[in-house]
Structure formats: structure tokens, C-alpha cells
């Protein structure tokens, strides 16, 4: 290390990976991965979410959950921004993922025509 500045630069670079272990408040995307979800194509939705998050270099927590009962509407994803209500989107295709992430996660605008439910 030639300087403290160099160390700090390296720290910033490697910190991104470590953030995955931070359970603090970040935007969260939850993908329904119950049997119904998987059958409806949730694996591809999950992959699309990850690709979009990576492409835009977003600091988002991506987790999965089981079947919430609305099997008819799978694939379902929940988007929860810190301090905002959780929104459930359904009947999704891979193309919808990009739209939701751009409009809602990045710009904060809910994509109304894809919304299934809002949770207080």
C-alpha cells in the first residue's frame, strides 16, 4: 500500500460484496418461489431481477418467499422500499421485471397496471 487513500479505494471496491451480509434497511425485492411460483416461471423472473439489479449496480436485497395463496396470479414479486408500503406485483413476465425495477425501485413510481395488492 502506497498510501491510506489507496487503502480506502480498495475498501470501497470490496465493500459492495460484503454488503450482502448487512441486514440493515435497503430496498427489498421478494420473489415468490413456492411450488406454484416455480411452476409459473418464477425462476426466470428471479434471474431477470438479478440481471437487472446487477446491470444497474443497485444496492437491493433480493430474497424469496413461499406460496402466499394467490397461486392464480403467480409469478409474484413484492417490492418494499424503506419507509414505503410494500407492493405486490403479479402475473409477471420477464419484460415486466425491467419496467418494475426502472419505474418503482429506481424512480419510486409504482407501476399501477401490474399491481395486485398494497400492504400497509
Amino acid at each position, binding site marked *: *500500500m*502506497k*498510501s*491510506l487513500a489507496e487503502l480506502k479505494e480498495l475498501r470501497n471496491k*470490496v465493500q459492495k460484496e460484503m454488503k*450482502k451480509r448487512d441486514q440493515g434497511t435497503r430496498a427489498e425485492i421478494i*420473489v415468490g418461489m413456492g411450488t406454484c411460483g416455480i411452476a409459473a416461471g418464477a425462476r426466470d423472473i428471479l434471474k431477470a431481477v*438479478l440481471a437487472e439489479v446487477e446491470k444497474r449496480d443497485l444496492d437491493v436485497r433480493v430474497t424469496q418467499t413461499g406460496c402466499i395463496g394467490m397461486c392464480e396470479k403467480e409469478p409474484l414479486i413484492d417490492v418494499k422500499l424503506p419507509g414505503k408500503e410494500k407492493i405486490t406485483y403479479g402475473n409477471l413476465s420477464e419484460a415486466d421485471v425491467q419496467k418494475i425495477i426502472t419505474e418503482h425501485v429506481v424512480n419510486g413510481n409504482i407501476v399501477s397496471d401490474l399491481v395486485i395488492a398494497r400492504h400497509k
Partner: protein
Amino acid sequence: MKDSIYRSHVLICTGTGCVSSGANTLKESLEEELAANDLSGEIKIVETGCHGFCEKGPIMIVYPEGVFYCEVQSDDVAEIVEEHLLKGRTVERLLFKEPMTDEQIPSYQDIDFYKKQQRIALANCGQIDPEDIDEYIALGGYEAAGKVLTEMDPQEVVDIIKDAGLRGRGGGGFPTGLKWQFAKNSEGDKKYVICNADEGDPGAFMDRSILEGDPHRIIEGMLVAAYAIGADEGYVYVRAEYPLAIKRLEKAIEDAEEYGLLGENIFSSGFNFKLHIKKGAGAFVCGEETALMNSIEGKRGMPTPRPPYPAVRGLWGKPTNINNVETYANIPYIINEGADSFSAIGTEGSSGTKVFALTGKINNTGLVEVPMGTTLKEVIFEIGGGLGKGKKFKAVQTGGPSGGCLPEDYLDLPIDYDSLLDAGTMMGSGGMVVMDEDSCMVDVARFFLNFTQSESCGKCTPCREGTKRMLEILNRITDGEGKDGDIELLLDLGEHIKSTSLCGLGQSAPNPVLSTIRYFRDEYEAHIHDHNCPAGVCSDLVSAYVIDEEACIGCGKCAKVCPVDAISGEIKSPFTIDPDVCIACGACEPECPVDAISQA
């Protein structure tokens, strides 16, 4: 660096405890299952150091949720991958259950064991891959060293450590800042820093876990110390019985050298520092600083009188600063957060936290770090989860073979250097052995004295001869041949050995005996005058077990488990126990389906 989009990190503990429970096969099983489910590119597997919760190992934590899985075996991996990693459903049966309430706790932060801890020395253990220097740096590693080398002068550094109030964590409790000041004040252009990683106390593994789980922290602490006192070379003296710690430390030194964090002109400051590892060879006495330095010099590991202290004349006659692993582990925090932040934790006389190895008759055995001032009760009953069902607390042994035992009356004692000394024991390096009504205090004293006696180097008469005689007396007592006057003789001998031995080994060897006599004198008297061992441990003094002939159904289950073949009989006829052979171990009693066995 890392190109895959990891959405989840799975941390597998590969500290020695978990490895011995099968953690190494977990990583392979996990890799296989992830590949089979096409998840390899999304899930990152990280092998970490010890979390401290050894009782429940192997441990696996899934982030970002922070779900804490215990006692995970290779067979469980398929389920974890399919249910949790793929579908997001926690595998309930593998979650931690509070011992007293059976409540299942999914999240790491909510478990009682961790809630009350404040992890400074252990901050990174279990959270990072100890073989990856980048992870240490990501969490702020080497910034303290950088700050010190580029922005502070050596006296400033010494002053911060003094103000923080850090005291030696190896057991002596000597103010660290003062020790550094002495070494700094010594004249000379060649000085050394040494890290004492010999950790000889039986059952202690605080230092081992830090070395295995966060080796860079020690390197950083030593860098700061070396700069403060003006040393350019250092040694980590690690016991050879810690191969994993040695391996991780070697890798850490190699990586630090590659990044220019060790070697010449570090951070372009003009400061050079080279670090070596020296392996110990199995002698407890080499944990004593002068014996340790003799060992590094290639001489026999025997202590030399002090003064002169190492800070004045140490390794190869040069001024040397020697500190314990845990002491160095606290340095980065103090530099980064400031002296006040550190001294705000703990008590007036003892700042900061202390790592304890909790063992014995306790539910949550493992490694814990708590602020000084935490009471024994909190550590044993809240963090430790209390004793087993139906068992009553009898005593807690602190400080390893140099310490003493404290009975129930002392449970509310706040833990710090001075309060423990006043009570007749000591902090030592942090061992804490919990005992219940089935532990014989005389036997405990004998066990520890047996250890220190065999480790005595033989150089000075009080230790060499004195501990031998004390041990003889204790053996006679536990064999049922105690005499009137034995207790007084033990006390007398003990005081003499303490005040005249050359080094800490002899000076503290009598402690377990003296403290058990102080608080459990009645047990000694029962052994000597009543020929009885109240706890039922000393085999020559306990009554043999007997089988009620009328109740016995002649199944023979008891005979099968008897370790000394004291039980005989024919199937379907009453069995009998030979009282001369029986060692009263009690293995037969629970085997009997009709409760026909009891102690006479």
C-alpha cells in the same frame, strides 16, 4: 474480482470446533447441491472463523436474512438448498432453540447467546473469510494502521492506548499503554514486538479463535504497537497444537506482504515491519514471557528473573513489547473509534470487553465477549443458557489453572480484574468452567494442580518441590487417606509457594487449592474426617452401587455398560455388583428398566 451476481451469502463456520463436528464436508455438499439446482452463480459460499457458539456447531448462516442454522450435517444440505435458497422457506428443524423455553429463533441477532454480547475483539469472527484479506479490508481493516503510520507520531499512539485504559488480556491485566511507554522510552535502534499466542490454559480457546477467524486483526495490532515503540521486527509465538491458526496466520502474513502492508516503507511512511511466526513445542511454561523469549532464542523454555522487564531488556537483550493475542485484537478498535469510546465500555478500573471460553456443565458452551462489569449470573444463566435440567449451580472456576472457584454467593459479582482478585480468584486469560453438584471441589483442585505440577519447569525450588508435595497431599485426600492437619499444611505450603516462586506458574499454581479451601472447606473435611466425597466423585470414597435383588428382572443391561466388569449374573436371575470392584461411576443406574439399582 467477483463477476457473479451473488444474491445470497452462505457462511459456513470452519473454526476448529465446527470442523471436528463435520463442517469440512458441508462445503462440498453445498457446492454439489447448488450446482444440481443451477444456483452456483447466485449463492456465494464463505468459510469463516469461529462464531463462538461451539455447542451448536456446525453452524451455517444465510444472508441477507441472517438465518442461523445449527448442527447442520451433510444430509441436511439438500433440504436447505431446495427449501431456503431456492424457495425462501426457512428449514425450521435446523433453527436454534432456546434451551429453557424451546422457542425457535431464526435470526442470529435475536438469540440470547448473542444479544448480550459486545464483540470488539471477535467483531469479524464468523463474519468474514479469514483467508481473504479483501474481506478484512472491506470491513475497515488496516485503516487504523494507515492512520497511525501516516497521521500520528509514536507518542500520540501510546497516549491513546493509555487513555483507553486497555489492560493486558493474557491474564496479568497490566496497563498496556504503560507497557508500551516503557518500551518506547528504552534506548536503542533495535526493538521487537511479540504476540503471545501460546494459550496454555486447558480448555481456553479465545486466542485460537481469533487467530483462526481474523488473523489480520493481530497483524494490524502489532503494526500499531511496533510503530509506537520503534520496533521493526516481530514474532507471533503460536503453540504448535494450533495447526489451523498457524496456517491462517501464514496466509495472512503472505497476503499482507503482497499488499505492502508488511515489509518496507509501509504506506510510504518510511516505517518497516517484518513479522515472523515461531511455533511453540508443548510447554505451558512457555506462555510466561521470559520463558517464551528464551524459547524464541533457541534456549530451553525456562523463566528468568525480572527485573529487567522485557520492555527494557527482552528478546536478544533488546527492548521488547510482548502482549497477548486478545490485547492486540483490541488495538484497531481503539485507534478507529477513539480512547473514550473504549473506556466508556466496561468498568472504572477495567475498560472494554473480555472474551471468555464458557465450558463445563452449561447449556451454551462456546466463546463469548462481554463488557467488563457484566455479572457472572448474566454470563452463566442468560448468555450461557443456564445448567442442564434439574442441575443446580455449585461453582464457577475462572482463570484456568491459575485461578480459583467462586460459589453461588458470588453470582452477582461484576466481572473485572480487581473484583475477581478480591474474591480470591482472577480473570486469567478468560476460561470459565461451570460446575454443578456432581463436581467434587477437592478433585477439581487436584486436577488443576496435577496440570501445573507436570508443567513446572523445575528451575526454582518452591515450585518444583512445593507443588509436588501439595499434589501428594491432595492425592492422599482423594484416595481416602487424608490426615488431620492436611488442610492447614496445604494453606501454609500454598502461601509460601505463591510468594517465593520465580515465575507466574508457581506463583499461581496454589490458587485453585486455596480458593476451594476458602469456599468449600467442608468438602475437604468430609473427605478427611468422614471418608466421604459428597459429590460422589472420588471413587475410593463413595459407596458402591447395589442391585435390589427382589426388583431385578435379570435382563443384564447393567452388566453390559459396566466399565470395570463389576456386575455379574445369569439371565433371568438377579444380578449382583461386587462392591470391591465397583468404582461408583453410575453408568449402570440409568440402564435398569425397573429402577433396581441405587447407591448404598
